[in-house]
């Protein structure tokens, strides 16, 4: 079975950056793509996230996720290309169907933003030990429960992938076709979603019980088994990101 955990220590430069700085990077990077509705700027920000993923040696891990999101984004591209309110200039004609430049440009911006969102959070999740992230959030004053929920959201994707894999294997053994053309894969995908979601919900309930019996709700002071890590100039990195954010806002207002 494929391992379901998202983090492995690659001992890269990105692993040396503290979790809060990486979280801040994810927010700043996403915020900038929404602050400027510009394809070149969004491309540039996405490029930075991709470079960071490359430096962190985790770019390959994010590719399947980008591919899955692209299949979902296809519907947005089609709808916007056909029906965006500002559509004027035809760009592509397929028989009687006309795709317009304005709609496709808008869809491209959305796609780039989603890709950047995934890549930026990928930098955080794929290069940060989950425990370190949780510990850092708790040290920033976040409650353990909220820190865990925050962490779980990101754990959910690899876990659901693993669950989906198991259910696919089970359905395949009962004769369902899951390999072949895109159509066959799409047909097989939707019946798997129900059991995958139900199974994940059940697992979440069981995990909540497991946490409860291991004192997660304990109101006393918590301790940590790991020694405190020293990161690469955390204050310097965070200040840099905040300055970048302020500069972007000022540029947007003034420019």
């Amino acid at each position, binding site marked *: 079975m494929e391992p379901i955990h998202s983090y492995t220590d690659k001992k890269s430069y990105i692993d040396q950056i503290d979790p809060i700085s990486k979280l801040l990077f994810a927010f700043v990077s996403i915020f900038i793509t929404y602050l400027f509705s510009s394809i070149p700027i969004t491309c540039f920000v996405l490029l930075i996230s991709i470079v960071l993923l490359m430096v962190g040696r985790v770019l390959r891990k994010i590719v399947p996720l980008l591919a899955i999101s692209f299949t979902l984004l296809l519907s947005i591209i089609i709808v916007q290309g056909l029906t965006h309110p500002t559509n004027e200039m035809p760009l592509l004609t397929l028989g009687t169907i006309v795709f317009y430049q304005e709609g496709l440009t808008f869809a491209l911006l959305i796609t780039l933003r989603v890709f950047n969102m995934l890549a930026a959070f990928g930098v955080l999740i794929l290069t940060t030990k989950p425990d370190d992230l949780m510990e850092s959030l708790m040290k920033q004053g976040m409650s353990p429960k909220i820190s865990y929920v925050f962490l779980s959201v990101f754990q959910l994707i690899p876990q659901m992938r693993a669950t989906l894999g198991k259910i696919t294997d089970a359905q395949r053994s009962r004769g369902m076709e899951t390999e072949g053309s895109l159509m066959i894969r799409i047909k097989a995908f939707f019946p798997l979603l129900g059991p995958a979601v139900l199974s994940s919900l059940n697992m979440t309930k069981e*995990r909540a019980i497991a946490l*409860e019996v291991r004192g997660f709700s304990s109101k006393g002071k918590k301790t940590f088994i790991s020694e405190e890590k020293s990161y690469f100039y955390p204050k310097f990195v965070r200040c840099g990101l905040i300055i970048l954010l302020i500069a972007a806002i000022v540029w947007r207002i003034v420019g």
Partner: protein
Amino acid sequence: MSKIRVEGLKYRYPDMDSLVLDDLSFEVEKGAFIGIVGENTAGKSTLCYALTGLVPHFFKGAYGGNVLIDNIDVKQSEISDVTSKAGLVFDQPFSQMTGSKTTVYEEIAFGLENSGVEREEMRIRIDNSLRLMDIEHLQNKNPYDLSGGQMQRVAIASVLAMKPDVIVLDEPTSQLDPQGSDEVFQVIAKLAESGITIIMAEHKLEKLAEYASKILLLHKGKQIAYGSPKEVFSRDDILEYGIAPPVYVRIAKALKLKNKAGFYPITLDGLKQQWNVGDE
């Protein structure tokens, strides 16, 4: 003095009409190994939750009666206080992993961190648990890279590290192969010998017959019997409660090999002995 006292325990889940536990009363001595048996929906898992305080603290609903551990009422205590006395291991090894830890060593530390145990003490307890469960060689592995059996041992080690007086296990071997099941039973029997009270809901009756000191038979939430494995598995009406008695009991029944007290042998050795007595 009893370690656990259950008095007239009744419980109904919020979205259900009927009682899942209906007037259960029994006592468990320190260091005993109690097996809970019954068909599906008998109430075994719910009883495990009630013994660890999850019912009524985590699962709400209608609750009546008392569960006392060391004379302390579970209902009146904080759940974290109850779980420090009574740990729970359940059937799915995968769901028992926290998802926030990347090594087995850290996984075992999770409960201790929550309880605020100092780092040095944590290390001692983790090392002991690893040794007891014979998983020292796995300590640096990612919990999600382990097999089901290994994961289950990590789950038990995590509970053990909390130093509970009672360990409640809800079908801990249901996902394991025969060898994995054997290993888990052997470790648990060892824990019972060391003075930890064990309560285990289980369908593998041959194993319970071998290791348990007492059996609690449940049916539709009601307590049908509570006694020695020989006593419970020798009942003539046991099939009516959806329980196929251990294979040696069935053989002994077919051969009409009862002992003087009127019970059938429950193990192979017991069967052989009874056979020889019968011969004489």
